[in-house]
């Protein structure tokens, strides 16, 4: 076996500037896309609940298409397909003195679209966990549909949405590695170029894996605090040890989308 421990520790503890830039790109694209996806997803979820058939249909098609096709295909179609067909091309723009490459814009748009479809489904099923009695109680107090959503349904539904939303964000961070195919200089692409320059493929990809693990672990801790915050809000205890919650989040992928709070909370409170 060939393993260069010196190169490994060097890359791990004092990574090169290009690697760090890749890391920053990964974080920035993930956070921006997720933030945008939360808004778009909420909008799509509202459309899916609309009284109007046309809006419900549009929302349904949106979710169906974006969840039914691979992110990689969406990404390439958006960045290269559209420009090849002469429909639309992403150009480098400069905002507040920072120039943003077309590929980065395409990446943010593709990730936002893709992620928003998952967010919409999470929001939709989260809203469904709120008992009808809550809507009736709001109605008899004279609240409008919008203020019922704002003050009664959303604040409660958020609690059930945080775990699946957190998991899908976790997934999104890892998925940023495919942005390398359109040349976004994120962590994976940087790792690849270091690898081909140094031939230390094993070492540098171990380092990359550890950094991805660090990102997802940091997020898991943040998510744990957010979950605890929302459980406190409804007067529920939240005493899952951080470690087992970390394991749970890392284990579950997008499969655990629609867990309702009822099947979730008591079990976790009981098992120390």
């Amino acid at each position, binding site marked *: 076996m060939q393993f260069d421990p010196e190169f490994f520790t060097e890359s791990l503890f004092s990574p090169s500037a290009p690697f760090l830039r890749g890391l920053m790109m990964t974080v920035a694209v993930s956070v921006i896309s997720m933030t945008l996806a939360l808004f778009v997803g909420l909008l799509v979820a509202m459309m899916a609940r609309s009284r109007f058939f046309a809006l419900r249909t549009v929302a349904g098609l949106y979710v169906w298409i974006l969840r039914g096709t691979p992110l990689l295909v969406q990404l390439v179609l958006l960045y290269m397909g559209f420009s090849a067909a002469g429909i639309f091309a992403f150009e480098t723009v400069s905002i507040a003195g920072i120039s943003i490459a077309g590929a980065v814009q395409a990446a943010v748009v593709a990730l936002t679209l893709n992620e928003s479809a998952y967010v919409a489904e999470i929001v939709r099923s989260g809203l469904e966990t709120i*008992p009808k*009695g*809550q809507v*009736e*109680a709001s*109605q*008899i*107090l*004279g*609240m*409008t549909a919008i*203020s019922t959503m704002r*003050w*009664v349904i959303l*604040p*409660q539904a958020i*609690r059930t949405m945080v775990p699946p939303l957190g998991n899908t964000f976790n997934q999104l961070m890892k998925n940023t590695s495919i942005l390398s195919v359109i040349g976004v200089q994120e962590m994976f692409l940087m790792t690849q170029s270091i690898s081909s320059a140094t031939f230390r493929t094993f070492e540098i990809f171990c380092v990359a894996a550890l950094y991805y693990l660090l990102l997802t672990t940091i997020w898991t801790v943040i998510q744990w605090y957010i979950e605890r915050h929302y459980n406190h*809000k*409804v*007067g*529920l205890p939240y005493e899952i040890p951080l470690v087992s919650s970390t394991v749970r989040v890392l284990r579950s992928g997008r499969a655990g989308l629609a867990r309702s709070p009822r099947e979730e909370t008591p079990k976790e409170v009981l098992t120390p």
Partner: protein
Amino acid sequence: MTALLSEKTISGPVMYAKEITKTYGDKTVLHGVSAQVLEGQVLTLVGPSGSGKTTLLRTFNRLEEPTSGEILLDSKPLGKRSRSDGGYGDDVQQLRLDQQRIGFVFQSFNLFPHMSAAENVWHAPVRVKRENKAEAVGRAHELLGRVGLADQADQKPATLSGGQQQRVAIARALAMRPRLLLFDEPTSALDPEMTSEVLRTIQGLAEEGVTMVIVTHEMAFARRVSDRVVVMEAGRILEEGTAEQIFSHPEHERTRRFLSSLE
């Protein structure tokens, strides 16, 4: 102490339900039922399970839309606005305003779990009626004190007992200064010890002259608190009268049988 009731209006029934029918698909659960409550009176609806008590009560504030019939609140059609042609038409905004004047207490409380007891009580006065927040919060504490929960104002519903939650729900309804309070089996989800504290609270309101309609299976309570009692069976009124008439001298054999089945 501030008044519990909104200002009095013209004499005549506070609420008059006229020939209410309700069908679900091809199943008729209310066959043209009429009922009224006068100012300061307590009307109780009793009857066997499935006789349509809940459905009828829920049409009184149009939480359930009657298939036909009309609800008058202070002699005005509930949730309707007069049209230029002299008739009345449905109006969403008017319905919201009217519904604010009818309090409803659910069997399962339906408190907002993410709000403290006090916030549950002041939320609608502040966010819906745009009352001054400091005053509404003060009044919320006063109302909680009145239902015996002064110490629990900052608790979330999940940490309260069922009886306490139901009393918060009563305070929440009172905070809107309703013309009329509707109760759908307010104690049937409660243990016996908690039942009595809630019934005492409701009886206190009755003594203060709050106009109420109560669906209940607690016959001893119904007898104590009611001015009028309506006995329902299979979507129709079987018998109606004062508490004394219904409980001591029921006319119908079936009323007698229903009452004795509960003893």
